[in-house]
């Protein structure tokens, strides 16, 4: 899995080097170049100061793995918005080529939707609304009369055709629709629709040229069941943009920062469950542009450290089961709720040899089908056996084991985001 930092809010078109340096120093090796910042106002071209060559030079050792094509400027009347958007997308692919990015995200052309909202303005007699059914090489797509699929099919195929020599994979993404300032589900929000579109486009071009980038912030604005969305997209999913918002405003906040009381406002449980379930191994993009905008440039290096840690935490959570697969033999440390949760969700597939605990009163007892042993027993482990700590005192226990001379791999297990949960917790007085 590649962990990417979005340039949104960090890298500006006038002084790109500073933000890129902050990204690099925080530990990121890959960036997602969001071209929105380089777009000239009301124009379907990039700023003269931000040529692809200038950006390529500024990126330096970082790898631009992904580029995001900008949208048309809001509230601007274009003579031919379709052509303007197509031109922007083509420019974006040229940028992707210039910086060596293998993926370019191009959102569906969505103006078609707004032209349909006319029923309440007409007289009752004038209303139609027949369902049009388009056959797309096997997959049937229901669409409304102005036919978003048909227009986007032409759009993406023209894009692919005009950039035949470009190697970048084109990723569709989920969008919102604006109803009087309220964001609701737009094109490709429905994962079945998104998957159908991607598969139909790939059939048409005869190559695996198209994929999907899931924007978690957009899912959150639309209150979606994100786990279901991810599972439906499955192997169509190339990239995931991690960003948080309050479910009302289309913001890009650092995950876990939009909290109310003890709870966050994004279904990170659903995100991690879904990505873990499909064994996601694509690109994980941290987009925190609005969080970054609030910080002084003097504090951004420290913020970037937190962004790196947060994104890497997601990678670790998503790969929790992948991590278990690495070892032929494992033992657990801890005989409490976390151990119980491990056994509930993973105990059958990754059966530990035993568990151990510092509480000597538990030694010799059985817990969730495992014998509880003294930590001293870990000294007799075979070399290839890993110890998975199932206790929130991770660092202390790891130090304890290292002090005891345990040389086996030590891994942290965590049950914050489990495939399922017990309704109750076990409580011990000792």
């Amino acid at each position, binding site marked *: 899995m590649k962990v990417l930092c979005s340039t949104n809010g960090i890298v500006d078109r006038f002084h790109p080097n500073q933000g890129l340096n902050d990204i690099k120093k925080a530990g990121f090796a890959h960036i997602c170049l969001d071209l929105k910042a380089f777009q000239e106002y009301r124009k379907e071209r990039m700023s003269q100061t931000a040529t692809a060559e200038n950006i390529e030079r500024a990126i330096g050792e970082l790898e631009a793995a992904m580029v995001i094509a900008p949208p048309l400027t809001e509230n601007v009347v274009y003579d031919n918005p379709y052509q303007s958007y197509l031109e922007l997308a083509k420019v974006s692919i040229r940028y992707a080529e210039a910086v060596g990015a293998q993926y370019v995200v191009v959102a569906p052309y969505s103006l078609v939707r707004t032209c349909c909202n006319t029923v309440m303005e007409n007289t009752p007699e004038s209303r139609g609304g027949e369902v049009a059914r388009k056959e797309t090489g096997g997959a049937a797509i229901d669409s409304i009369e102005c036919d978003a699929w048909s227009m986007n099919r032409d759009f993406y195929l023209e894009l692919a055709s005009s950039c035949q020599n470009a190697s970048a994979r084109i990723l569709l993404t989920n969008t919102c629709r604006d109803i009087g*300032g*309220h964001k609701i589900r737009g094109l490709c929000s429905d994962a079945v629709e998104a998957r159908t579109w991607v598969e139909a486009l790939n059939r048409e071009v005869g190559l695996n040229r198209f994929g999907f980038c899931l924007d978690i912030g957009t899912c959150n604005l639309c209150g979606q069941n994100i786990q*279901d969305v991810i599972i439906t997209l499955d192997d169509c999913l190339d990239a995931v943009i991690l960003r948080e918002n309050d479910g009302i405003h289309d913001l890009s906040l650092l995950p876990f920062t939009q909290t109310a009381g003890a709870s966050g406002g994004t279904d990170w449980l659903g995100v991690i469950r879904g990505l873990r379930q499909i064994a996601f191994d694509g690109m994980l993009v941290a987009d925190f542009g609005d969080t970054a905008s609030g910080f002084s440039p003097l504090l951004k290096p420290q913020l970037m450290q937190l962004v790196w840690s947060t994104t890497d935490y997601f990678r670790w959570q998503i790969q929790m089961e992948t991590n278990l697969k690495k070892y032929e033999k494992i033992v657990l440390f801890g005989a409490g709720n976390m151990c119980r949760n491990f056994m509930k969700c993973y105990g059958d597939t990754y059966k530990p040899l035993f568990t151990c605990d510092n509480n000597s009163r538990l030694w010799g007892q059985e817990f969730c089908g495992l014998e509880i042993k003294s930590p001293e027993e870990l000294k007799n482990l075979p070399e290839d056996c890993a110890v998975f700590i199932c206790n929130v005192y991770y660092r202390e226990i790891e130090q304890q084991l290292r002090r005891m001379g345990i040389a086996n791999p030590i891994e942290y297990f965590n049950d914050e985001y489990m495939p399922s949960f017990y309704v109750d917790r076990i409580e011990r007085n000792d």
Partner: protein
Amino acid sequence: MLEIGIQTRNAIDDSNPLDGFRALKAAGFSCVDFSLNSYLRNRDLYQFEKNTFFDKSEAELRTYFAPIQAAANEAGIRVHQMHMPYPNYVPDAPKDLNRYLREVVAPKSLRICAFFGCRYIVIHGFKLARFLGSEEEEWEKTREFLEYLAPLAKELGVTMCIENIYTSVGNHIVEGPCCDARKAAERIDAMNEKYGAQVLGFCLDTGHANLVGLDMEDFIRTLGTRLKVLHIHDNDGVADLHQIPYTFTRNRENQPSTDWDGFVKGLRAIGFDGVLNFETAPVLDSFPAELRGQALAFIGEIGAYFASFLQ
């Protein structure tokens, strides 16, 4: 023209139901959505508490509701749909409570529904995805509950309607059970085929749809004729406020922030011929007593406005 309905909660006083039904009739309603859920409140159930209303025998319940039914008849109001008390399952509650909800409250609710001559009862799906790990497993629990009731529903000629409801992540309302129209359609068809009757249908709640940004037109088109009943109400997209349609805007252009256009377009596309039913009980708390009649009439007018597009 399609009939217009409204829920009975806040509108009908059991001690003098005739006045309430007459007021609804005067406001332009010919149907009601009987709020059976008012007799066993959800906030109590979530605290593992319950009253004794459903301890009454079926004969006692019929005796209790007979004057209400008579008043509705006298006022020219028909009970078109009913809302079963909810939740039907409380996670981590004592087993006795969940057994009571399943074995006592639910079957008696169906019988009360039939007693009123009402064909549709709205039932909330179980909210268990967090614990069980997926919407599919959550649905299995709901399906098992519905199938427990299905033979009785078939015998009584009642269609149980699952409703799109929400859950929350912190303070943010997100998609809950029955928010996927494709899955709902498949599940409804499967159950109806199994029982050889219309034991299952769908209730679209416009407020809940708005809260989780559903594309109402697509949703309705996907459900098609499986859509049996409606809960029409509005909100700000943030909280479940159950207010009058067209109340909320989000920008200076002051366009409505709920997709009423898509709602009507969807109903029109499927040839909806049911009742335009409003679930707007809180409106009667919002307005002073002196204006409640006009508020009700305004809701009725909006229903008639919607109906004008659906003839």
